[in-house]
């Protein structure tokens, strides 16, 4: 049986993560992520899709914090079903559905998904917009945009514009334009190691430092594209403070019109964002951000901050 191997950097770093139970974290890393899905109401009414699954003997239960989200039970393989290939369901981790629920996009709004590939959250946003308004799905990588395009196609999103550019350049063209912005930033992935143990083996602190700078620049750019009164969600699937609270704190220090707002996602177990760490003090409002450990819901680990542009 194979064993989870961690880099020396990661071993050292895990001791620094606030409020962490190392034993539980390692247990979560060794468990497979739960099989979860969203029904695609852009194609068929939800109840018809669910009935098709029930008719096949597939059992599932609703994910309390995600509209249209369900967790499959009994170890079913949904990836090869007709429903999946025809785009009636979309496979997505249960906690990965939380950032878009916190964003709460509505029909008729103008929404930007800045780091959109492979498109799980893009298609979730599109579903909540019900085909009304405009969704811009951007990613920096042509290669990753292929997967994004495939998923947009499968879900049948008509009100989407896909762009390929460095998100940091977007304010040049669309300053103060969007009602809602999602920045699900590239990160060091400590929340999803159970998906790929290779991440633990190659994890390095240098990468975290580089990502933290990039994330701060992306967040600044995303905030610039937001209309006054608009809402931005910053999320990562990692647990380091440098990629989470520290990034958001930097924006709060730079922009007096950036305000943290609480997030209410029923049933999602989480802890509060940290406001003091490693001799550093952050904005006290960061306690309203969500820090989700992989063992909180026995699923992915995430960080989610909801920021409103005042004005």
């Amino acid at each position: 049986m194979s064993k989870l191997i961690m880099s020396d950097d990661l071993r050292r770093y895990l001791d620094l993560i606030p409020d962490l139970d190392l034993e539980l974290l390692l247990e979560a890393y060794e468990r497979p992520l739960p099989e979860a899905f969203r029904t695609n109401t852009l194609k068929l009414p939800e109840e018809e899709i669910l009935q098709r699954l029930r008719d096949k003997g597939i059992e599932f239960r609703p994910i309390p914090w995600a509209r249209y989200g369900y967790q499959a039970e009994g170890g079913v393989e949904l990836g090869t079903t007709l429903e999946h290939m025809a785009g009636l369901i979309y496979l997505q981790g249960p906690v990965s559905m939380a950032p878009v629920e916190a964003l709460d996009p509505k029909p008729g709004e103008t929404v930007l998904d800045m780091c959109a590939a492979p498109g799980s959250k893009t298609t979730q946003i599109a579903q909540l917009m019900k085909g009304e308004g405009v969704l811009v799905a951007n990613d920096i990588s042509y290669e990753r945009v292929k997967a994004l395009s495939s998923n947009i196609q499968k879900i049948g999103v008509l009100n989407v514009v896909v762009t390929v550019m460095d998100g940091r350049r977007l304010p040049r063209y669309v300053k103060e334009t969007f009602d809602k912005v999602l920045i699900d930033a590239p990160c060091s992935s400590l929340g999803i190691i159970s998906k790929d143990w290779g991440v633990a083996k190659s994890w390095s602190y240098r990468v975290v430092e580089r990502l933290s700078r990039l994330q701060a620049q992306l967040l600044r750019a995303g905030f610039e594209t937001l209309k006054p009164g608009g809402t931005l969600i910053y999320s990562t699937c990692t647990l380091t403070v440098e990629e989470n609270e520290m990034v958001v704190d930097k924006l709060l220090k730079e922009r007096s019109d950036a305000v943290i707002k609480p997030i209410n996602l029923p049933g999602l177990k989480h802890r509060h964002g940290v406001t003091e760490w490693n001799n550093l003090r952050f904005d006290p409002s960061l306690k309203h951000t969500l820090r989700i450990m992989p063992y909180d819901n026995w699923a992915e680990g995430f960080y989610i901050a909801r920021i409103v542009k005042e004005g």
Partner: protein
Amino acid sequence: MRPLTSGERRILENRLMRQYGVEEAFKDLILVMAGQKRIRACTREAYEFSKKLRKVQQLGIYVAKLRGEDVVLSIEGSQLLGDKIKVNVIDLDEDEAIEWMKASPIRIKGEPTGKYVVARHGKIYLGSGIVSRDGKIYPQVAKWRRIPEL
């Protein structure tokens, strides 16, 4: 990517009428030509907004491909048209629909009149297939959409 001219749009509509009996195809949508005679559909609002942006890679979804004098509908293109498709539509049971999504040929039931048919499984439309002289229909399902053979 460029929007279809009114002439091109008329040609597409005529072909969809002739092949599938569709009236008023993709009426409220903007259709754009996206290389290799592929047609994509998006909302007017998304199309107008895209003019503000740079490095636009795609708009909306791929709905159809022009092939010679015919139109091949994608899975989503046929789903969008739905019950507007009046002729050359075949009904599949669950097992046949799975075979279709594996791109395996389906034996023809009855007498299809066209060169192409659209497959339907309940309310799910599964795109166009080519009717062959060997008595089979060959589904035009993109490789990445196929259910993998075990």
